[in-house]
């Protein structure tokens, strides 16, 4: 059984007001073209003006979300920095690649190349926090963020004494990346308004999104908002696999379906995952309230970060935002939350979080 990952704080930069959570879903930000781009906070708070000028949008978002997360937890220097991203800074990669093609490999400047390196946000956060400890970058598609939590669990298991980790994930949406993913069936042919995504679950595809999500994790319960006590990554499970694994995770903690107060479900409006999602929903207890988030976040490889941010938000504010409720359950308690994310490739991650 895994050692708890106590969440001290979270910070996300997303299409919604998550960076300024007092305005979360007030108003709801939506898009009609299937592209939910994230909002821009004031980046100058954590990054010097000189650095900002050369920095691409994803670097600014990643660094700012990471620094704000640590500030929220009152941590100056974490013991480790573990970040996941399926594609890193896409804009930088595109810029360097297109410059190289257009300029026929002559007179290139290295900025895009350097910043497109997948661990560049790791490096910056290490510099800004003077964190010389463990530093790792996972780039495994829809499990990039989950692998960070997995690694955090290993790190705590190896540690003696109190330790704090900055863990997070980010992915970027660009117009070109949208074109590419659209060609492999990621997005809906007929776009709907993002808010009504889940009522269009009869057609294949989802909508695109982006975000940067960071979490300050501790192996000590003091000042924690909640604790991750279960984590599973399932590669294209069958319906039966999924049911069994959920039952296993719950039973490890002496819980049953009835004990799940909230299921935060990363359903993405894609008809091709009904065979997984429908039984999951049907199996929930009448107690359980089901909440969804992809209509606010859009779909991307580290979108589960939005779900984890929402989990932390619910524990912090002791209520579920009404607009996120898919099905109201009878339990008014907020003690056990199961986050279930599903990707376009039908991979599933399960994260069990309990009140601290």
């Amino acid at each position, binding site marked *: 059984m895994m050692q708890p990952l106590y969440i001290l704080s979270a910070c996300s930069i997303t299409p919604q007001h998550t960076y300024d959570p007092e305005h979360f879903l007030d108003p709801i930000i939506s898009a009609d073209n299937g592209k939910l781009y994230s909002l821009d906070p004031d980046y100058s708070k954590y990054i010097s003006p000189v650095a900002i000028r050369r920095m691409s949008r994803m670097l600014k978002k990643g660094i700012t979300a990471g620094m704000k997360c640590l500030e929220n937890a009152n941590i100056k220097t974490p013991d480790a*920095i573990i970040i996941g991203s*399926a*594609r*890193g800074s896409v804009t930088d*990669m595109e810029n*360097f*690649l*297109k410059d*190289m*093609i257009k300029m*026929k*490999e*002559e007179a*290139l*400047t*290295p900025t895009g*190349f*350097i910043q497109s*390196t*997948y*661990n*560049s946000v*790791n*490096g*910056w956060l*290490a*510099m800004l*926090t*003077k*964190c*010389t*400890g*463990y*530093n*790792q*970058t*996972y*780039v*495994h*598609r829809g*499990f990039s963020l989950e*692998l960070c939590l*997995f*690694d955090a669990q*290993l790190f705590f*298991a*190896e540690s003696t004494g109190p330790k704090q980790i900055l863990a997070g994930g980010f992915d970027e949406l660009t117009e*070109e990346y949208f*074109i*590419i993913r659209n*060609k*492999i069936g990621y997005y809906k042919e007929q776009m709907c308004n993002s808010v009504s995504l889940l009522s269009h679950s009869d057609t294949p595809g989802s909508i695109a999104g982006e975000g940067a999500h960071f979490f300050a994790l501790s192996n000590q319960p003091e000042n924690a908002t909640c604790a991750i006590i279960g984590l599973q*990554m399932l*590669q294209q499970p069958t319906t039966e696999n999924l049911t069994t694994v959920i039952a296993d995770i719950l039973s490890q903690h002496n819980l049953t379906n009835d004990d799940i107060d909230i299921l935060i479900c990363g359903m993405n409006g894609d008809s091709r995952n009904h065979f997984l999602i429908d039984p999951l929903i049907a199996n929930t207890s009448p107690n359980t309230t089901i909440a969804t988030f992809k209509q606010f976040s859009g779909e991307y490889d580290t979108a589960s970060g939005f779900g984890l941010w929402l989990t932390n938000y619910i524990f912090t504010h002791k209520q579920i935002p009404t607009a996120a409720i898919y099905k109201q359950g009878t339990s008014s308690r907020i003690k056990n939350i199961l986050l279930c994310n599903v990707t376009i490739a039908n991979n599933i991650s399960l994260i069990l979080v309990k009140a601290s």
Partner: protein
Amino acid sequence: MAERVVVTAIGIISALGTGKKAHIEKLRRSESGVRNVAHLRSIHAADFVLGEIKSSNDELAEELNLPTGDNGYTRTTLLSLAAMNDLLRNTDIELLRNEPFAFINANTVGGMSKMEDIYMDVINSGTDENNNKYINTLDCAESTENVALHYGLKPLMATISTACSSSSNALILGARMIKQGIVKRAICGGGDALSRFTLNGFYSLKNVDKHTCKPFDQNRGGLNLGEAAAFCLLESESSAKARGANIIAVLSGYANTNDAYHPTAPSPTGEGACRTMQQALDMANLKPSDIGYINAHGTATQNNDLSEGMAIQTLFGANPPYFSSTKPFTGHTLAAAGVIEAIFSMWAIQEQLILPNMNFETKMEELDIMPITSLIENVPLQHVLSNSFGFGGSNVSLIFSRA
């Protein structure tokens, strides 16, 4: 005390060839794989020497019994499959089917070597059916997933990308998972194919040498890029012994730290590198004097060799163990570099060899120490240290010990 992690199988393809025999022969003969390229289509192709693998994509595909032409396999994946095939020559694949294992891969630019040829078509008209076969290869996990899929395996998978230290980190993750009892076995390594993207990236940073690189030389002129893929089968010592596996070496120590100094340059004093090597020694419960050979990162860039040289001098003193960079043999193979050099370190122990730092002529004026420049045989090595450092301040050291 946690169980020891051992290496029981190796698979490798680099500019020196495929498999142990081809590599050892060339390492013994001081024969470099860095040369003028045959496959990379760059306008700079004639200007640079690179550690390019001799086989074309079609030749690699044929060796793997895959269709030739636009088969949807990027060169990165083809190289990774070639390395995995080499590993499976000495490992029963049933072992991987019968018990859960982890597959930890490392990569820096995914299928860029293909996507850079077709990118404009893909984002514009994009009607070419053949191009669309590669459309989902512009991420680092493509080779990981395609290798697992090719063999019909469903391991616990992860892909790591920490620039030039990526595959050393893959080995560390596998070892940690074994020590924590999550899996008994992990196949860990990485691969990168040459691409114009990476070549031009390093060229724009002005740290590519047009001639064969000269690590730790006063007149070094930068790195030579290369391509490679390699994997190691890591296993708990008890499960290796239980199945009577041949133990190649023990992964006795490792460390991952960050410089927290600069986005691309290491600290000139080598503070970070020194701390990393020290932590690896601490884990292995060794003193600096226990190390018989250091396979250095030694990229032959101004920054790396100064920083790493200072670190070695600080930690090991004026009379350090034999050290060399084997990058003049293979080129800098980026995500694969860590595991390639980890394998060279294990072979050094197995074959009692100290590998030479080719092309060295002049001692660096900042340093009192010099690398070993010729092959030495019959050196009974007990412990070998291998360094990998990367952009983003990423530092990794690994220690391998005689089984």
